[in-house]
């Protein structure tokens, strides 16, 4: 018997728990040569802003041990271009689309949410309040529980779509911002965005990134991400999407067992653009081998 992989996050029903993370799979379409994205639980597109943004100056990326730093600065084509050029193609493919978005202030967030509300082909919103790269908004909102509450409440009032809130790990206690998002009406929490990090080119004695500080992603951060998923799962009754350093099906299982309802693959897409197919197959094989009928029975099954 093939195990049942369906999961549900609020009103959002997904055929399986494997998603691609925002900023690591373009607008989804770029992944098509490597496997039909309609087979994913969902694809989370690159963070959109109201207007197109050209992002930060180079160098923007650097490799670190089992990880990488980026300061892309949320470069994106803007809301209009997404709706006009990308979304129709995504709909045509039958992919489930989650739109990640960010704003410079609370009004931006609200306006974005309002404009995305009810658009055919968008299955959920993911609010990025955790990006460490943009000077305005981003990091400040995401690190203060009260600010999180206000921003999420504003967005909640502007959309009927399932609303995910993506949290930054750069906080003393992730449960506080998680609870604020939950109380303001989030349907689910995405954990985690990148850790703030920095690297130095010792030969030139310059920062490796033009913006000096960037976001650390990849397997290096997985233990931090799993810990936060588990902590939030103990504290708050809201579905969690786990993200951070997933490289293999085993890693995805760590998150599910620790309490994530679904997972997102990020940095791994750069190296292995078809890895999500293996991860999905690996989860299925595991459920089979361990005699779970539904993936939901595995979620949060950690024995401690």
């Amino acid at each position, binding site marked *: 018997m093939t195990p049942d992989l369906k999961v549900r996050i609020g009103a959002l029903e997904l055929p399986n728990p494997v998603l691609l993370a925002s*900023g*690591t*799979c*373009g607008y989804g379409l*770029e*992944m098509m040569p490597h496997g039909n994205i309609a087979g994913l639980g969902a694809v989370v597109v690159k963070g959109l802003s109201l207007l197109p943004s*050209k*992002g930060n*100056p*180079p*160098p*923007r*990326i*650097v*490799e*670190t*041990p*089992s*990880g*990488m730093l*980026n300061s*892309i600065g949320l*470069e994106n084509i803007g809301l209009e271009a997404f709706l006009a050029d990308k979304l129709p193609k995504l709909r045509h493919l039958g992919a489930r689309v989650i739109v990640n978005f960010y704003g410079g202030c609370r009004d931006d967030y609200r306006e974005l949410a309002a404009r995305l509300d009810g658009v055919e082909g968008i299955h959920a919103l993911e609010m990025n309040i955790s990006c460490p790269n943009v000077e305005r908004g981003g990091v400040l909102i995401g690190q203060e529980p009260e600010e999180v509450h206000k921003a999420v409440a504003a967005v909640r009032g502007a959309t009927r779509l399932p609303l995910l809130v993506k949290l930054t790990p750069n906080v003393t206690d992730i449960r506080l911002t998680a609870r604020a998002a939950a109380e303001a009406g989030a349907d689910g929490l995405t954990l985690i965005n990148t850790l703030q990090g920095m690297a130095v080119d010792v030969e030139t004695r310059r920062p490796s990134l*033009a913006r000096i500080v960037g976001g650390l992603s*990849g*397997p*290096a951060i997985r233990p931090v991400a799993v810990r936060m998923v588990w902590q939030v799962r103990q504290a708050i009754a809201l579905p969690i999407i786990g993200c951070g350093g997933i*490289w293999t099906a085993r890693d995805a299982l760590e998150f599910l067992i620790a309490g994530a309802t679904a997972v997102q693959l990020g*940095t791994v*897409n*750069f*190296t292995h*653009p078809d890895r999500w197919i293996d991860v999905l197959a690996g989860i299925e094989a595991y459920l089979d081998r361990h005699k779970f009928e539904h993936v939901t029975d595995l979620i949060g099954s950690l024995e401690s």
Partner: protein
Amino acid sequence: MLLKIRAARRLTEDFQLLEVDWPAGLPEPLPGQFVMVRTREGTDPLWRRPLGVHDFRRVRGAGVLSLLFQIVGPTTHDLAGLAPGAPLDLLGPHGRGFKIDAAEIWLVSGGRGVAPLFYVARLLRRTGVPCRAFLGGRSAGHILRERDLVRFGCRVEVATDDGSRGRRGLVTEPLEHALSRLSARRRAAVMLLACGPHGMLKAVAGIVAVHGVAAQVSVDPLMACGRGLCLGCTVAAPGGYRLACQHGPVFNVRDLDWDAR
């Protein structure tokens, strides 16, 4: 995608040449495009590494891709240890390559920069377009494929930092000298294709501006994905940024901003 190593040869102490069987299903690589390779399980190093298409030929109908690389770190070290028959994990070809539509082509390379230019020379021999090559490098061991370029009919000039091969000095010196001796008409017919360290490319950009010659350059910023997913490989262009992996790695010299960091 696992391809198979067909041949491996150490050209000089620091440089290795690999030949890889190219599967029929894949698009034929174009000059100036690149592939993304990796050699290790595990997550350090994390990224694939880009390597230019050094050469492409057909042997009894079957494609053979050549890679030429300098051994500088973990991936190139591992690659240098691969023997014929070994599998190679490779994605590509990626990017936009050289446009070879001028009446005369001059190749300008610094060190490993000769890697993608070699395939251009092979194609030029086929079409009979006149070709000159200016090869620069640290020392004799960093001047590569000189003889084969001559065999392809290129007129080759060499400069090394230490004078151990060719003239002593920068490769831009013989280049400037040659340009300064061209008639205005010949200048208009020449297209420079350059690949090498950023400093060299910047110097070339200055030289072609002065002499009014057209040029394309192949740049090599750090790349995480090689396929437009990470938006990390940006290079500065007038009014914004371009992705080296998608809009390049080959750019018209005028399409880049040479004053940015």
